[in-house]
């Protein structure tokens, strides 16, 4: 019996891990391209959960249309983040990193509060996108929703990884990060690259919200915490490495999936905090951390 509980916890954990990895990659993309750590990323995840409810349940769109709408609106939210909280700061302050940190925190909080005003502060359940009747593998009942999250999460992560590693998009990102002026000399419009990074990250975070909505419900507040889990995944795995994001996400996901199954659920977050603090104190670069992002030699202010 207890083995079943642990396996169920593992499945939950892997589903959550997929979400955390998507969020961690969103953070990384933006940071790599622009040097901004976007604290408002969690807000886009939250918007994803709410859109899943509004478009899917209230408007009654088909699931794929909802997904497309979430990607599009998430990307727009990402671009808006840049236009509102990042672009006005450029060249105006002594420490760009410091100022954008504050401006994105501010934007995120204000947006969350406005969402709470429009949507209400209570969380509302979102029906699953696939059948809710458990698949029995042996004696273990697996919820299809979780499997869907895992499959989609892995698919998106692999896609992004391949695009960044193997295609010209990745080269453009790397060049922009390593040497913005050189990139401009090569005819790369770095502003477009940065906007693109914000858009892709926004789309990914939106999808993360859409995927997780049936599990955690749609709410103006809950999704905020997911950003912290995404950060924990990055801190453990090491910043700027896809392998790190995957492994860190898996560790955080399994911890958050299994711990509530075998112990007091309240223990999860404190344990995770201690793990992350221990990692930061002992090995600040994380398990797979590199100095630069995407194999670049340029060390961003980390």
């Amino acid at each position, binding site marked *: 019996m207890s083995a079943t509980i642990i396996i169920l916890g593992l499945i939950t954990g892997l589903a959550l891990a997929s979400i955390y990895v998507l969020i961690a990659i969103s953070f990384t993309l933006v940071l790599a391209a622009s040097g901004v750590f976007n604290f408002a990323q969690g807000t886009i995840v939250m918007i994803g959960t709410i859109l899943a409810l509004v478009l899917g349940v209230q408007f009654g769109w088909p699931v794929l249309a909802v997904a497309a709408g979430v990607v599009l609106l998430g990307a727009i939210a990402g671009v808006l983040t840049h236009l509102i909280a990042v672009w006005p700061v450029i060249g105006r302050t002594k420490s760009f990193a410091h100022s954008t940190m504050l401006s994105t925190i501010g934007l995120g909080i204000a947006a969350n509060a406005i969402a709470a005003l429009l949507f209400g502060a209570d969380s509302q359940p979102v029906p699953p996108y696939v059948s809710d009747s458990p698949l029995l593998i042996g004696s273990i009942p697996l919820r299809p929703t979780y499997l869907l999250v895992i499959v989609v999460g892995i698919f998106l992560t692999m896609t992004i990884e391949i695009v960044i590693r193997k295609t010209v998009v990745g080269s453009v990102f790397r060049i922009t990060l390593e040497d913005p002026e050189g990139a401009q000399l090569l005819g790369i419009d770095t502003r477009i690259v940065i906007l693109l990074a914000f858009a892709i990250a926004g789309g990914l975070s939106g999808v993360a919200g859409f995927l997780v909505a049936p599990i955690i419900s749609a709410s103006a507040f809950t999704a905020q915490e997911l950003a912290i889990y995404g950060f924990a995944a990055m801190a453990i795995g090491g910043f700027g490495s896809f392998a790190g994001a995957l492994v860190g996400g898996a560790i955080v996901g399994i911890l958050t999936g299994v711990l509530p199954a075998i112990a007091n659920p*309240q*223990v999860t977050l404190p344990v995770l905090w201690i793990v992350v603090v221990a990692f930061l*104190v002992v090995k600040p670069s994380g398990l797979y951390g590199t100095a630069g992002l995407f194999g670049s030699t340029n060390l961003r202010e980390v």
Partner: protein
Amino acid sequence: MHDLARKPPVTALDNDAVSREFSAWIARKARLRHINVAIAILILIGLGLIPLISQGTYAYARYGVALAYVMAAVGLNLAIGFTGELVLGHAVVMAAGAYAAGMLSAHAGVSFPFAVLGGIAGGLAAGAAVMLPGLRVRGWYLALITMFAVLVLPRVVVLTEHWTGGEFGLTGIQPPSFLGYLLSDWVLYEVTLLLLALVGLLVANLVRSGWGYRLRAVRDIGTASAAIGLRPNRIRFTVYLLAAGPAALAGALQAFTDAFVNADSFGISLTLLLLTGVMLGGAGTLWGPIVGMAPLIALSFWVGPFSVYNAVALGAGLLISAIVVPDGFVPLIRRWVSRRTPSSAVADSMPVAPVGDSGSGNPSIRTRREFGPEILKARGVMKTFGGVRALQGIDMSIRQGELVGLIGPNGSGKSTFLNVLSGFIAPDAGDIRYRDADVTGWRVDELALAGIGRTFQVPQLIDELTSLENIEIGLVGHENSDLISAVLRLPRDIARERRRRTAALEIFRAMRFAPETLGRPIAELSLGFKRIVEIGRAAVSKPTILLLDEPAAGLNEKERQDLGDRLQELAAQGITILVVEHNVPFVLRICDSLMLLENGQVTCRADLDEALPERLETYLRHDPTPTTQKVES
């Protein structure tokens, strides 16, 4: 500019001008302080009279809590504003203070003053735990991990509900009493107000003392502050505790004000309230947290503490302050006031470079000096970065009192070698002897305190401080860092300040800075000026050796001339100087001897008053660096 240049070089008159400028600057500071004290007293009286017009337990509780928030913000400002450490865990510190004090009172029946002391201890412990990662990570990493702790707090409270009351909150806190007298609501409010005033006073003392320099050095100079004998991480950890103190006290007082503690009061919204308050008012200014918190608290009184409009306003306030007033309102107000009052003290057109001594070819300086024994020796120093062999077995020595130029092509390893000598980079092999000790592997601050000072290619100064204060900082690392006398402004601390000022003034005169620059923030002055101020900061602690990294880069002819004169004067006083430089005419003019570094090895070394070896001659002749348009590497 002209009448200054016409003045005779170093005379009693110049010194008088410096003294006059110094007295005027001190007087300006004193006047500003008096104005601040007057404003503070007026505000205190105003707030102290509130019980006359507004009464009732609920009203007092709200005002008391508002004061507690301001107190916590004052603490947060020490970390965020003065030290530049973006820690967002002060809500946890307040909660720990509140729970510790509350539990001592409710469960153990500890009396009010001791429960508050216990609360402070609890808050300090929580602060140390929450901010500990700051010793390893910076920037947004630190911001996130400390914010994470705020989310963890409610879970810990539920897990320990046997003591903390869990989700239902902690009740049973005894009404506060002192020496047998029960403190009524309004007395507790007045006590909170007085404690806030006390915290403000202690913080003002602290940032005025040598510790104020330490904090700002960590913020503006960072790791380079080790080169003036400071230990950044030790200072950081001290600041975490110092910053936690007011928040812990605030939490403890809040527990008694509310007679109830609940984790919900110490969530992300409190964190944001404190952060926005500090940033909006002006991080790193004494009035910032007060000016910034006032409108936010007023808003929460207006819309109610639980209204979601608070969050909208906090978020928008933070966003707007980051974009529109990145420095906060206090500097804005200060600039506005100083623009309206015509400044008589500082003329608008002032020379930004030090007034040059007309006797630049001073023969007494140029005469050949006798050098002492070899005091700095390197043997077989190697350093590899990745695959690049930057240093490939450097052997060299420097005699006491000589002014050595270290020259060589780009990428020959000059700066790397300087970083090895000053302890910033540990060599892979080889050793370095200073006087008679093997100093290989010593920390930067140990070397600095032992008498090896250095400057940087980009001057590492504290922008908001004046040239005189920036020179003073060179002495802080050499002093006793005792906190008690700093926060209480004991005679010991005043004596230290006087010693620092005297020594800095001496350097200010010796380096012939234009008197008008004495009271000016260093940010307003030119690069050449900053370079010489940085050298002055290194010289003020009377180092044995000065290591200078490209001091003439980016200077114009006049500034370079001045710089050379100052260096020769320092050498004449017996300070040994190693200067890394590209500019050949400059090194030929000022140095006693030259060392040529090529491909990570010293290939040539010669005294300049003797015939130069062929190789050095060739290098000097072929060095393409033009004297005027040098590109900084």
